[in-house]
């Protein structure tokens, strides 16, 4: 028999990365920045977005794409806070969103009426780090009910993120969470990480987050 070896050398993320570039291109054309919110389950991504939509949803024309393994509960929660479309992607078992899902979700979003776009990724500190969705930046949410050393345990996610939201700060007096150590652990893996310290539940510390988003949103077209 004739056994032949065929060299392929094809990057396995190439297809996703091409689609992510497509997403990035479309958003750049519309001038809409997209942020990819990532975290472990239960760190408060949805509550952070609820608060954000309450205060800035109209002002900044915020649209959201949510990803969950099952249910569209998060999308339903967020849809109650905005008149804009909240697109739910149910991954049906997959542990992350990929660029093809975001590209499809974009088709339903009126980008001309949108100044800022959030993707709420599947709650998981591992897999979403590997998938470029075409975002401007990943924002990792960590809460004070988690371990301070999460950035060391999940370094890729914290390396990939440009911003970190330390959430549930209202619970700090009640939990054995060493804030300085958490920041040091995060900076150890990513010295350039920029922090926000918030309680999305009580509203504590949300102003600097809101100011940041106001600076990021597409400049409105004057009438």
């Amino acid at each position, binding site marked *: 028999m*004739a056994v032949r*070896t065929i060299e*392929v*050398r094809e*990057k396995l993320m190439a297809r996703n990365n091409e689609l992510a570039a497509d997403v990035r291109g479309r958003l750049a054309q519309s001038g809409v920045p997209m942020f990819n919110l990532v975290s472990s389950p239960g760190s408060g991504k949805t509550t952070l977005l609820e608060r954000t939509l309450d205060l800035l949803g109209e002002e900044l024309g915020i649209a959201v794409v949510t990803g969950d393994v099952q249910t569209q509960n998060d999308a339903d929660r967020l849809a109650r806070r905005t008149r804009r479309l909240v697109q739910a992607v149910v991954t049906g078992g997959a542990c992350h969103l990929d660029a093809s899902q975001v590209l499809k979700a974009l088709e339903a979003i009126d980008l001309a009426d949108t100044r800022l776009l959030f993707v709420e990724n599947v709650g*998981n500190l591992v*897999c979403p780090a590997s998938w470029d969705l075409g975002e401007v930046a990943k924002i990792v949410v960590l809460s004070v009910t988690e371990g301070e050393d999460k950035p060391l345990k999940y370094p890729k996610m914290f390396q990939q993120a440009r911003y970190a939201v330390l959430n549930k700060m209202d619970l700090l007096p009640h939990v054995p969470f060493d804030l300085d150590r958490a920041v040091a652990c995060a900076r150890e893996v990513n010295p350039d990480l920029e922090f926000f310290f918030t309680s999305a539940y009580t509203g504590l510390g949300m102003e600097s987050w809101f100011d940041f988003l106001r600076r990021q949103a597409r400049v409105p077209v004057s009438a």
Partner: protein
Amino acid sequence: MHEMSIALEVGRLVELELERNPGRLLSVGVMIGDDAGLEPESLAFCLEAVLAHPPFDGARPVLNRVPGDTLRLEYLEIDDGRPDD
């Protein structure tokens, strides 16, 4: 945890390659970096599951571990049924 997604992408690329180079697939080489965010044993398990079905005929996955975050399909080994040169 996304090893199955990657294994399915390997399957998609191998299928395209087999259309260009018909034959019986014997093995599939995948280069996987230590920082690629994947568990090699889990990826091997998922690849075995994907390659167990037609048109792959139970081909063997061969993982080549390297430093860094490389993740690529390296090669296919096929028997094209033609006599040896």
